């Protein structure tokens, strides 16, 4: 018997705003524009929204600030904050709320002006007492430690990591909305300024502005709107640590569990996935998540991502809009991979469209490889 939430709700609207630079606008200005774009996309209006799911690096009580700004009075809201993966996790919470009748129209949304506000990572995070004396750069040093350990255990190379950035750029070149689209070679990445060894500047995601919004409703009413619904088939989350010292094994992320849970709920396996969107804050992320989600055996991620295998024309399409590395990355990024997956399943991706894409896997990461959230989305044929 399939899981009660499998296919019980669907995404019927998506919207973005201010991706790249959004001069003079606040995070909520951008979020509101993205929200109205998503409502227009679905054919819904603000007064239809009765469920709100959001996270923020700017607002201590994000659902309150967001609802107030938008002018809505949600009957259910959830501001679960697990970093950049929050918005992927919100798909599960929204599905539960919709399925149990706590709301009918769920809005998942995010906005940030990280770039025009000066480029620094906005955070309300407490300092990690036992890390402070050693001055790690947050968050890159934690990812660098994971990359170094992966290299030590499995012989992964900087060249292989560089190929993740090159693949992302090649996808971005097919996406007119991507923020950075000029040619990028493996050598460019290797020769870029070293920041926290082995990660150099071009191993790191962009710093942009941007907002995104997704509208979810129950599957029964999902066909009433403008676009082909995209169904939530499975979702799983996992978190094992907050700070990097507490991560049991730096080469194995909790994506292993979140992925298993998502596959199980969806009743699907890795072989069924047509397109993959993973949270690539740093090049090592893509490699770790492809391993932990079962696309290649543990330790073989380096060889798997190398030489164009995840580029356009490779065996597995990964981060088809250009990812956080080349498309957009405003502080927390999870909502944007959700939106790209929906676009792929609607078949509206133009030059970067994956032919016949029916099932997409979206994987979000938060903190320092800390929270992992996996959603599996599918077209009507997969129900």
């Amino acid at each position, binding site marked *: 018997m399939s899981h009660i939430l499998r296919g019980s709700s669907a995404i019927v609207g998506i919207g973005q705003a201010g991706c790249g630079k959004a001069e003079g606008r606040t995070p909520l200005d951008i979020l509101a524009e993205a929200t109205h774009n998503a409502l227009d996309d679905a054919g819904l209006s603000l007064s239809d929204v009765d469920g709100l799911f959001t996270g923020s690096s700017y607002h201590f009580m994000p659902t309150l600030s967001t609802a107030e700004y938008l002018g809505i009075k949600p009957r259910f809201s959830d501001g679960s904050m697990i970093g950049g993966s929050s918005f992927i996790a919100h798909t599960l919470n929204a599905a539960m709320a919709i399925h149990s009748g706590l709301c009918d129209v769920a809005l998942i949304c995010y906005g940030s002006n990280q770039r025009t506000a000066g480029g620094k990572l906005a955070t309300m995070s407490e300092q990690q007492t*036992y890390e402070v*004396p*050693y001055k*790690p750069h947050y968050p890159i*040093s934690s990812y660098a430690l994971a990359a170094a*350990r992966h290299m*030590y255990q499995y012989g992964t190379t900087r060249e292989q990591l560089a190929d993740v950035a090159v693949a992302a750029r090649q996808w971005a070149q097919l996406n007119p909305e991507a923020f950075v689209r000029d040619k990028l070679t493996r050598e460019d990445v290797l020769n870029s300024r*070293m920041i926290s060894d082995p990660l150099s500047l071009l191993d790191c995601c962009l710093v942009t502005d941007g907002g995104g919004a997704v509208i979810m409703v129950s599957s029964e009413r999902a066909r009433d709107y403008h676009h082909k619904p995209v169904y939530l088939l499975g979702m799983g989350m996992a978190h094992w640590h907050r700070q990097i*010292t507490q991560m049991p094994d*730096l080469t194995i992320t909790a994506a292993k569990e979140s992925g298993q849970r998502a596959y199980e709920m969806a009743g699907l396996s890795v072989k069924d996935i047509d397109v993959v969107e993973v949270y690539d804050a740093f090049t090592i992320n893509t490699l770790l998540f492809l391993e932990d989600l079962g696309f290649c055996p543990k330790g073989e991620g380096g060889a798997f991502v190398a030489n164009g295998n995840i580029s356009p024309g490779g065996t597995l399409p990964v981060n088809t809009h250009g990812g956080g590395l080349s498309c957009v990355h405003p502080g927390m990024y999870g909502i944007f991979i959700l939106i790209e997956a929906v676009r792929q399943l609607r078949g509206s991706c133009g030059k970067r469209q994956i032919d016949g894409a029916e099932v997409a896997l979206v994987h979000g990461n938060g903190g320092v490889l800390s929270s992992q959230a996996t959603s599996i989305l599918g077209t009507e044929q997969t129900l």
Partner: protein
Amino acid sequence: MTQITNKEVGPDQIYTDYLKKQIFALPKCMKCKKYHFFPRTACPHCGSFKLEWYPVTGAGEVYSCTTIYRKSERGGNYNVSLITLNEGPRIMSRVEGVEPESVKIGSRVTASIDNETDEPFVIFTPTEIPGSCHTY
């Protein structure tokens, strides 16, 4: 070892108080016998409140490391490492006494306490091998 048992003092303060006495001590669970770090009021392995503080050997191994690049006029490059202690817990620290770029995963290190400020912290240096003039 004398236990710092003042009930008004939490685990973070106890850890620091030992460091101020030049003792690197960690809480050990009297039920499952495991050490943990960072210090807590309950054992993260089994949930027991029966914790006592014991000095650790300070011996450990570099589990992972990174060199953070910094302009020389601002102090130059420096190392950040994760060290797995012989007693089990892993801590973030810095390996000193060698160039940051030559710190290697898998090398043996020994703890010492940097007590120059009000907030002492543990650092590591490569372990001297007896009978050898080399360190690694």
